[in-house]
């Protein structure tokens, strides 16, 4: 009997380890868990990703608000490509959200994806460069990945496929995210949430400690992602940024812009989504906000037209950001989308005019 139990435990452990080594399998399983409301569903992101880090019950709020699809009567003539992060692919993952868009391709920067596509010249090809403020300097100051994000040679040969397979096998064997994945598969079930909340509340009340990646706002009503505050980090809204650094970032953006133009894109837009702390508490703990976004947008040398997310979200303030998430609320997302859709509709109108 003891041997049989041992074999069962061994089988389960091997299965969990195998699944956790695969990003694809983990992603698929997580999707199922996040959609489920039963005891085995996942609460990690249900109440905001920062709640999923702290489990402080006072921040356990389900994101509310419905989303109105754009009401636009223009013809679907656009192929939209987005070099983007979770602000886009978690919220707008289909063409239905965009005005006049027939096909949507998202290139995720957090997964180091690259844009290598043959453009359909019968369409209006639009490229959106979207970055969250915390990633701007990481990606645009000196990143080889970003320098080669647009590949001019579209290839689909077997050699590169084999290379990809070897790369996948390596990532499977030595997956750097395996601990995060294991946590999803072993601990992330709704049934465990009350225990996690008990631990978090006890530690907060007794020792005033919360997860090291999270910081509380002055009022205590908002959670912020710590790397966006810690001024020793490049992702911080409060680390000093020199003018020459701004020039480097703008030069990187211009290079991408020119490369995309050469590839045949008709319109290219830039949009930098501010860190919640930049909008909600720009004087956090007497720190000085570095105004990274406005300095880039106001640069005389910047060639790329931009969707000014900073002004849009700054006007909406608290309504734009969730108290327990690093991302915007559906309301904040809608404000931005409305402006972007206006630009897309104009692009179609312009094309019709020129034809």
């Amino acid at each position, binding site marked *: 009997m003891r041997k049989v139990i041992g074999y069962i435990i061994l089988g389960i452990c091997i299965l*969990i380890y195998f699944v*956790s080594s695969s990003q694809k399998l983990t992603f698929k399983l997580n999707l199922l868990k996040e959609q489920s409301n039963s005891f085995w569903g996942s609460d990690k992101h249900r109440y905001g990703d920062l709640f999923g880090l702290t489990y402080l019950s006072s921040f356990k709020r389900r994101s509310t608000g419905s989303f109105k699809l754009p009401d636009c009567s223009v013809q679907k003539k656009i192929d939209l490509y987005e070099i983007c992060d979770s602000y886009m692919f978690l919220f707008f993952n289909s063409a239905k959200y965009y005005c006049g868009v027939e096909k949507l391709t998202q290139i995720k920067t957090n997964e180091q994806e690259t844009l290598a596509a043959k453009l359909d010249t019968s369409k209006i090809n639009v490229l959106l460069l979207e970055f969250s403020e915390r990633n701007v300097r990481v990606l645009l100051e000196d990143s080889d990945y970003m320098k080669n994000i647009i590949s001019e040679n579209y290839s689909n040969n077997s050699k590169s496929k084999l290379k990809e397979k070897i790369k996948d096998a390596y990532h499977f064997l030595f997956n750097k995210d395996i601990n995060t994945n294991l946590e999803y598969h072993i601990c992330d079930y709704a049934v465990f949430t009350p225990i996690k909340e008990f631990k978090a509340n006890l530690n907060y009340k*007794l020792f005033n400690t919360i997860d090291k990646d999270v910081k509380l706002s002055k009022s205590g009503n908002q959670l912020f992602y710590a790397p966006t505050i810690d001024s020793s980090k490049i992702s911080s809204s409060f680390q000093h940024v020199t003018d020459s650094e701004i020039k480097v970032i703008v030069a990187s953006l211009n290079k991408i812009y020119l490369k995309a133009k050469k590839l045949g894109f008709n319109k290219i837009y830039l949009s930098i989504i501010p860190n919640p702390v930049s909008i909600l508490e720009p004087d956090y703990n007497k720190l000085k906000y570095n105004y990274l976004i406005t300095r880039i947008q106001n640069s005389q040398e910047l060639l790329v037209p931009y969707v000014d997310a900073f002004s849009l979200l700054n006007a909406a303030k608290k309504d734009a950001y969730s108290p327990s998430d690093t991302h915007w609320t559906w309301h904040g997302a809608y404000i931005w989308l409305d402006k972007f859709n206006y630009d897309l509709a104009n692009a179609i109108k312009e094309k019709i005019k020129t034809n």
Partner: protein
Amino acid sequence: MLYNSLQFLLFYIIITLLYWYIPNKNRWLLLLLASCYFYMSFVPAYILILGFTICIDYCAGIFLEKTTNHAAKKTLLIISLIANIGVLVFFKYFNFLNHNLDNLLGYTAHHTPFPFLTMLLPIGLSFHTFQAMSYTIEVYRGNYKAEKHFGIYALYVMFYPQLVAGPIERPQNILWQFHKEQQYSFENLKSGLMQMAFGLFKKVVIADRIAQIVDKVYADPRSENGSTLLIVTILYSFQIYCDFSGYSDIGIGAARTMGYKLVNNFNVPYLSKSLSEFWSKWHMSLSTWFRDYLYFPLGGSRVPIPRKYLNLMIVFLISGLWHGANWTFVIWGALHGALLIIEHLKNDCFKKYTFGTRNNRITSILHISGIFFLVTFTWIFFRSPNLHIAKIILQKIFSFSILAQFNYSVATLPLLIFSFALIISLMIKEYYFLVIPTKNTKSFYITFILLLVSVYIFGVFNNTQFIYFQF
């Protein structure tokens, strides 16, 4: 793969169960493959460095045994030592030496001609290098026969429970165990699991919680007062103890559940009444390594007294350098060396003039406290990133700001009380039981479950590395 991670938990369960389910003849292979995977989970490419030293030392061992010519034997030993120390110097000390050369040349307005290395230090390099060296030295001395089985020899260097932070094993203790057929024993399983659980408790509940306070203060000691720095340095003494002994406990326990007995690494060092006693109870596998392979060959204590003191200083300077390529570690080692010399001088004087010290409870407490504060004082150099910061901390501690109130913004009063309560409980527990007894199965289950629950409730899980991994 950190011991305080879910990856290790699953890895450990899978390997241990597989170990008991497969035939004995294949177990060495399973353990070797598991150890390779364990090491490669940090930086895969560094397995090549380990492979290089394993091949050199394996061949050196075989030839050392075959050769009867003393000069040839010596040459083989030197080749093996150069290969091991060469790897260590290149990866660990090259930048340190280059930086100091650059500073020296700076006086003549010149710069170092060598470029600085940008690669990461292979994890646990000092540990497995020392373990490999002990093998060739023992074979050279004729104390142990060369291992013929390449796989078993590789396993001796790579055995995952002690690969990256010790205990540093000797061939006499562990190699024969890999040849022996291990029999499953419930007693071994219980004691191994209990040692692992308590090691995890020491790491995530005590060390990592204290680390939250220590890291905050040592990140900017200029803005702290003397009393805060003193209390936090005392806390650091326990952080490093719980961190390192916790690691050793998990490693020793994991090996025990598979039937292997590794050497003990700690024996309640903070209850030592002298510095010599402290060093016989702190990181015992390293202390005995230096004793057997450096101090004794230098002549040990069977030489004129000034030479004995010089030998002590050499050993501790090298021990300091072993810990890290930084002047702070050299000073730390030098301080321990100097303090030990003073202790030996004092003992020699007492012997000469037949003075005696009374052994009662009060003198014991005074001795223990004195040694603890001396050791804590030296940790300032060990923890500081550079000598300048160490100097600032010392200036603050030895100034009037020692009378200022503790800065409660770095740690709340309940957190401080909790930390010290845990430390006192730990000392009492370790004084009475070095390892928790597990003979009674019922009490084993209760204690084990209670430990795991408190690890979960009060543990800090943020993938913090073990301090000694950097060495």
